[in-house]
């Protein structure tokens, strides 16, 4: 039972919850750029949270299903079709054997997760199926997927699909003929009108920057450079100058750290970032806002709003509440 890749898309990788507990050995967690969308995608097909799914980036893949499967595409609004008919997003969809799912461009947002009931079963490496592109391990041979790849599913993916779908309350026949439900999960991380506003706290080295740079970071509108990737989003805008160039001893870096290399242009560290670094940290993005930043496509515009540690906690509480209520509703659909 597997998925066959006809066209790979721009950057499609296998990602699960991530690889934790190894950062002291230089291994970063990787995992989904937008963990909120992955969690919803898994819940939509009745999976445990953290199962491996495909992360689609900007331009999606074309996939042939060698067996029937229950899938959900969640996150960015991809222009996608299933056997030639529009694929409803953020819903569980029963895919018939030998049909093909074609995803085009992301119309809103830039990353979506294609979850399959039972999860994608590439072999776990160091406790996770997440693809670690810089060190080339995890996922499918440590790389992005290519045309001709086969992604293994659980042996009974077909039975699981039928069983889970029959448990769902399908009250209304979809006129398009696609086997799905009448409800959908909410999109919690899609970018609103640009520039999107992302909350950030002052970083450890904020005071190393001159007054103009400190102001500019929170006032300028930044553009996501086309050089951005899963390691980091390079931001284009005014160059940020330091008062004096002091050498900083290499120290741990985090998801959401905004560091400024010598050229003065900030880099926001994303899922595949390095575990340590010696560039000064001007800011740290609030954990609740990292998934929304991850949804910004190259060329997208962002502004940073200063927030406190307490406000960041409040943002997390609100996001967790919204996600939990969506997950509760989905769990209810699967149990009734």
């Amino acid at each position, binding site marked *: 039972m597997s998925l066959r890749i006809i066209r790979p898309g721009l950057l499609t990788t296998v990602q699960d919850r991530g690889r*934790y*507990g*190894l*950062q*002291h*050995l*230089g*291994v970063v*967690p990787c995992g989904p750029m937008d963990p909120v969308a992955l969690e919803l995608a898994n819940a939509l097909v009745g999976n445990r949270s953290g199962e491996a799914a495909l992360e689609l980036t900007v331009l999606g893949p074309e996939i042939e299903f060698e067996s029937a499967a229950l899938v959900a595409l969640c996150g960015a609004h991809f222009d996608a079709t299933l056997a030639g008919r529009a694929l409803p997003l953020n819903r569980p969809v029963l895919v018939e054997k030998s049909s093909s799912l074609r995803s085009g461009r992301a119309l809103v947002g830039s990353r979506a997760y294609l979850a399959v009931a039972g999860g994608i079963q590439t072999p776990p*490496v*160091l406790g996770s199926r997440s693809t*670690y592109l*810089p*060190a080339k*391990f*995890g996922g499918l041979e440590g790389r992005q997927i290519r045309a001709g790849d086969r992604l293994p599913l659980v042996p009974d993916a077909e039975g699981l699909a039928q069983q889970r779908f029959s448990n769902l309350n399908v009250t209304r026949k979809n006129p398009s003929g696609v086997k799905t439900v009448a409800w959908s999960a909410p999109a919690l991380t899609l970018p609103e009108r640009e520039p999107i506003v992302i909350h950030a*706290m002052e970083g*450890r080295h904020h005071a190393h920057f001159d007054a103009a740079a400190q102001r500019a970071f929170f006032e300028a509108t930044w553009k996501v450079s086309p050089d951005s990737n899963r390691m980091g989003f390079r931001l284009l805008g005014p160059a940020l100058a330091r008062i004096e160039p002091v050498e900083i*001893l*290499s*120290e*741990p*870096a*985090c*998801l*959401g*750290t905004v560091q400024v290399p010598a050229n003065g242009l900030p880099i926001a560290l994303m899922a595949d970032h*390095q*575990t*340590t*670094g010696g560039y000064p*940290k001007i800011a*740290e*993005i*609030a*954990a*609740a806002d990292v998934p929304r930043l991850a949804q910004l496509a190259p060329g997208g515009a962002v502004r940073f709003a200063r927030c406190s*540690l307490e406000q*960041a*906690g409040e943002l*997390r509480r609100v996001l*967790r509440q919204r996600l939990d209520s969506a997950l509760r509703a989905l769990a209810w659909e699967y149990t009734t």
Partner: protein
Amino acid sequence: MHDRRRGAKNRLKKLLKTLRLSPLGDGAVYAEFGDTLDLELNRSLQALAVALRARALPWIRDVVPALCGIALHFDPFHPELPAPVLEYCRALLEDCFDSAAKFEDSGRTVEVPVCYDVEFGLDLTEVSERTSFSIDEIIKRHVKTQHWVLMVGFSPGQPYIGGLDPGLAVPRRAAPRVRMPTGSVAIANAQTAVYPYETPGGWSIIGRTPLTVFDPARDPASLFAPGDRVRFIPVSRIEFEKLK
């Protein structure tokens, strides 16, 4: 033995006085003990990191010892995440100091065969000019001292190793190499690094190890862990090929 334990306790007590905590966003806290590289300090904080990891707190994902401090990475959405987390981490660290002494020097000794031939030691001649030591003297000095893994980072398994003979402390090269060959043993300032992957780098290459530094399919995956002692063992070109 008793004296050594007491020495470790005293070192840790001294360390506690210099503790400075700062948030790394709302997903991690950095416990910093000064901002200059100090081998004794690093040894103590390695012990502290082991003690912290031994707590296995469900909301802490990673305990990352660095050159002068320890990062605690947590799951910011974990239901058991204490608030305010900074105060809690301070209490946790203070609490761990008591148990940390017994972990000092708990690391393994890693023996690293290195072929110091100029074929691999691409910058040996340059280092020789800078230090006015002969190549043989450079090798002798690199092998002689006691080395420690201060931190692993940048790439999976890449060690930052302290304990370099002060006479070998050369600055980073002005023009970094685009590719440091895999297995390169390189020095800069007071440290040695071993490159697990072919990456760019500005350190001076003095040799190469035939060992695989990081292999996710091996157990343990990483040849080096923070706190390990390191012994560099010079090997000939022929031995290098045999060990590969």
